[in-house]
């Protein structure tokens, strides 16, 4: 592609300034975070809370990104997404329970390998489940929002029940692998290991998604499809294949997030996906329906705010994200980084 740039005296694209419209949300997050520092007053506590908030935000982002991507491209809001989170958590935890010698070993490498294996298994299973879901449940109702909501709710119920059938009715508790228990300490600052891992993995996913969307041809097709599906197919792309691909990827991300969330809470239940869906919806609305970057910032905001308010004013902590949603929608009714849509 770069060959086409040769010898072009193209006018430079308008440079985005630091204070441009699109950067404001990120700036706002940073300001909130600094304001929290002033309110909390202790640096070490603030660092711990900020890391906890970032970790929570990253995990929510991983779970929410698939939902928002699917919505952006296909205009489908998948309530069944929550079931994939649970399904992924169960699959991942099962793998970990099957490998006690790996997770219990005092070897960080084996611990991490066990988690990676669990993630791969979870993503594999939820990816396949997503494929079936798209073909059987969602495909017949493209374009009909009412039926989509109903039918994906139905899919959620059935998938949840199938989890009960396969894994039994009880919740499963799990300890994190040895290397991820406890925290690193630097002076008075304690950094929980698992949270650090969550932040790292979340960042990897975010940048991988950004790279895919902005740096590959597939990403180009997806971004174009978000705006105008008809035109993409009129340019010769089989949009239905792209739909399947994105749906499967979105479901697999839900599975990935499910494993992380399960390890974070150290317990998995069939209902966990639906419970966290409320947070995810808030994040997706805040970010702007269909926007991956908006979803990222929204998730960070929700995660940080939950932890700051949890420390400063535990009473309002649980409702803080709803408050945040209302405030953001008053500021930007379409969400932080809305997506252009022609139809």
């Amino acid at each position, binding site marked *: 592609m770069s060959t086409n740039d040769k010898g072009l005296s193209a006018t430079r694209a308008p440079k985005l300034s630091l204070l441009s419209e699109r950067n404001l949300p990120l700036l706002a997050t940073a300001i909130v975070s600094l304001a929290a520092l002033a309110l909390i007053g202790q640096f070490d506590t603030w660092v711990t809370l900020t890391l906890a908030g970032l970790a929570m935000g990253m995990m929510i982002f991983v779970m929410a990104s698939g939902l928002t991507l699917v919505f952006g491209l296909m205009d489908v809001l998948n309530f069944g997404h929550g079931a994939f989170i649970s399904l992924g958590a169960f699959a991942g935890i099962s793998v970990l329970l099957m490998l006690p010698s790996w997770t219990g070993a005092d070897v960080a490498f084996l611990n991490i390998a066990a988690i990676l294996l669990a993630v791969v298994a979870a993503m594999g299973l939820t990816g396949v489940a997503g494929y079936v879901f798209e073909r059987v449940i969602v495909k017949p109702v493209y374009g009909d*929002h009412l039926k989509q909501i*109903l039918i994906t709710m*139905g899919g959620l119920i059935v998938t949840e029940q199938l989890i009960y059938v396969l894994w039994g009715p009880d919740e499963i508790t799990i300890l994190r692998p040895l290397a991820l228990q406890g925290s690193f300490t630097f002076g008075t600052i304690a950094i929980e290991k698992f949270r650090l891992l969550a932040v790292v993995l979340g960042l990897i996913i975010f940048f991988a998604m950004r790279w895919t969307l902005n740096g590959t041809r597939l990403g180009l097709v997806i971004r174009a499809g978000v705006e105008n599906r008809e035109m993409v197919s009129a340019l010769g792309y089989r949009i239905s294949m792209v739909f399947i691909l994105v749906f499967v990827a979105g479901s697999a991300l839900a599975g990935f997030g499910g494993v992380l969330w399960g390890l974070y809470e150290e317990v998995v239940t069939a209902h966990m996906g639906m419970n966290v*869906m*409320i947070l995810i919806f808030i994040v997706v*609305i805040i970010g702007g329906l269909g926007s991956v970057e908006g979803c990222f910032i929204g998730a960070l905001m929700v995660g940080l705010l939950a932890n700051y308010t949890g420390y400063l004013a535990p009473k309002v902590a*649980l*409702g803080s994200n*709803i408050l945040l*949603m209302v405030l953001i929608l008053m500021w930007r009714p379409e969400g932080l980084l809305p997506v252009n849509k022609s139809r």
Partner: protein
Amino acid sequence: MFSYIFSGDFPRSKLLTLLLVVIVVGLVLTPWLFPGSRSMETAMRIAIFIVLVASYDLLLGYTGIVSFAHTMFFGIGAYGVAITLNEMGRGYDAIFIGTALGFVGSVLLAFLIGLFSLRVKAIFFAMVTLAVASAFTLLVSQLYQFTGGEDGLTYSIPRELSPAFKLMKDKVFGVSINGKLVLYYCILFASFGLFLFMLRVVNSPFGRVLQAIRENEFRAEAIGYRTVIYRTATNCLAAGMAALAGSLMAIWLKYTGPDTTLSLNIMVDILLMVVIGGMGTLYGAVIGSTLFIMAQNYLQELMKVASDQFSAMGLPLLPDLIHPDRWLLWFGILFILSVYFFPTGIVGRLRKAKT
């Protein structure tokens, strides 16, 4: 006269009429036909859910709005009565004030939510209401001084409505005529009344406009109907009806807690009942609620027998699939099939079969 009672909207199918008659007669005669407190509990639940599900159908079936906040209004009605009974003691004044407060509160809240979000797409409304409902549930558990938090509230209702109050010395056909029986019929007829009121609403000119909006929103708007106003009004009406159903529930159970009123599971149940019974026809609410609650209470026993049988035969997986706790699995599948193949539900099917 019938035409007046049913607002001219008859079941329009012999089988459906028969089913409805069986349900109504069954509910009226439950204390005699199926003595025992369990069957009475089931019958009451059916009666109250008919109102609740019908009110949800006003939203979903008549205007195509998907709300996940319907249990919130149900809960507001229930907590209204529960809190006044708890604070003011067992009295009719408490019941009336609580019911009125719950009703007014629900309508106002529905109005606010409507102002805020009814202009937006269905999907957005669904998500916002889900978030609002979950925030409300949190609020209820936080305000435990008033609401009893997770444990809920247990309270007494006026003595004349309790089993200890005997109207007659002797039993009539084996059933003692006590305050509980009076309460049973009060709630049953209140439910019937509310249902018939909603039937009247959907068959009024107002209801016709709602149907026009559902069929083609742009056209309705173009003809000159302010769709937002109609939707907000429906949202308020549905919320008010749900609150009244909640008050009835609170009076009957003498207990109100998050699990009986606010939980997301109840919301899902309502959704299943509306769709399986039939969207866009209030009779669907009757069929859906009855079928669902009967299944909830009695299908499980049937499944248990079958599951034990298969389990004894040593079959794999199958016993788990029809384990009594998995009845929702089958209803979920039925729900999906309903949305695909007969979106007008059982009632729609029956009406079609006739013609």
